[in-house]
């Protein structure tokens, strides 16, 4: 199972690498959005606004990047994949790949945000950890939802389905980002990290349990 998952992840990476336009699209999207926000706010924002903008950009980028993750498997490839891999292998490989993709995109957003706005988080290590944990949660949730929406012709559906149920995770991540800038007690940090970790586990379990019901025709 493990070697199969690795092979599938490798396949995803290779496919993405071959279609450089798709990858380029999403990077330009990140650059463009951040630049737009830089101009709208006239280059001058406080840390809480910085954090809010960072996660808004990250959320919209995630939706755009993940929405196509099952589209290319929707037709003939679907039958091929079904015959060579179990649903569990598919969902794990997609989640791992999407988590990698979202993490990389979030790091790019972080770099671009630092480039445009001088504001920065004081505890960078903790903020990076938040980004990684947040990306994993985003990936768990949006991978499953994109498997649902790939079967419809409604492309806004992923955002509609995702936004209300990403809310608990998003609120925790924003809170955690603020704590990584300024925390009064260490206890708060551990509690929030624990809550985010727990949510990551819950979303992962839900995705893995429910995916086999989607991965049929």
């Amino acid at each position, binding site marked *: 199972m493990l070697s199969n998952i690795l092979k599938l992840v490798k396949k995803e990476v290779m496919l993405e690498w071959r279609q450089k336009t798709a990858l380029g699209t999403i990077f330009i999207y990140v650059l463009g959005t951040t630049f737009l926000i830089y101009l709208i706010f006239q280059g001058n924002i406080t840390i809480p606004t910085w954090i809010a903008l960072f996660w808004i950009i990250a959320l919209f980028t995630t939706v755009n990047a993940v929405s196509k993750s099952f589209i290319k498997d929707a037709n003939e490839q679907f039958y091929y994949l079904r015959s060579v891999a179990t649903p569990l292998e598919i969902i794990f490989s997609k989640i791992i790949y999407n988590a990698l993709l979202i993490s990389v995109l979030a790091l790019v957003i972080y770099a671009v945000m630092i480039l445009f706005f001088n504001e920065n988080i004081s505890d960078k290590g903790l903020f990076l950890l938040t980004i990684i944990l947040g990306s994993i949660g985003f990936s768990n949730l949006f991978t*499953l939802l994109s498997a*649902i929406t790939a*079967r419809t012709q409604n492309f806004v559906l992923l955002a509609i389905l995702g936004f209300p149920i990403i809310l*608990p995770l998003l609120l925790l991540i924003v809170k955690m980002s603020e704590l990584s800038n300024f925390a009064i007690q260490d206890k708060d940090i551990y509690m929030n990290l624990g*809550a985010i970790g727990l949510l990551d586990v819950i979303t992962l379990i*839900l995705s893995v349990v*429910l995916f086999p019901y*989607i991965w049929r025709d």
Partner: protein
Amino acid sequence: MKNWWKYLCILLLFYTVIMGFKGSIPELNILEESIRNLYFHVPMWFAMMTLMLVSVVYSIRYLSKQKIEDDIKAAAFAKVGFLFGFLGILTGAVWARATWGAWWVFQEVKLNGAAAALLVYAAYFILRGSFDDEEKKARFSAVYSIFAFVMFMVLINVIPRISNSSLHPGNGGNPGFNSYDLDSNLRLVFYPAVLGWILLSVWIATLLIRVEKIFRKKHGLDLEESLILPVINSSKNNKVENTDYIDFEEIK
């Protein structure tokens, strides 16, 4: 008496409305007469939560048994749950205007949780509308509803504890209603009101289910078996299996 609970529902609601408007209430600052909304606003949420729970139970049942009837029930309960959630927000907004001074208060996690719940429901209905194939519609919306239900439970149970900002009684340092309720007059109306509104919501849902079933019967749609899944899942009904499988392949 098969429908005893419907009579009970009518009785309880008459009692709620009469006692709600005419019954005695304790003298309270700020709240004053608006405390009567307790019999209408709070039971809406009880009813909505009950219906959400029933709906998600039917969704789980659909995934395990693939009977289209379960999907019809899940959808009907979700629809009525949405209605009651909407009524809960309306009655809550009126009450908030009278006591807190605004229709919508930002520093209020419960309001935001309620709005998120309605958004989830709305997304659920749009998802259902996006499929032509009935079996797919049932399956995918069941998956979404289970996922959303768990996340919603996390939202309303975990986040208020962390943000700790609520104006509702019993939250964020505010006294609960128990402390207002010295002569327990409120309770005598409140508990029957909760039961009455829940019964009414279930009643409406059963009516919706009946309408849907009659509609399907009239158009000759089968209730027992879903269209495609028996091929993969069960070998109970060979006849359905074969014909459906051939049809499906021809379409492809």
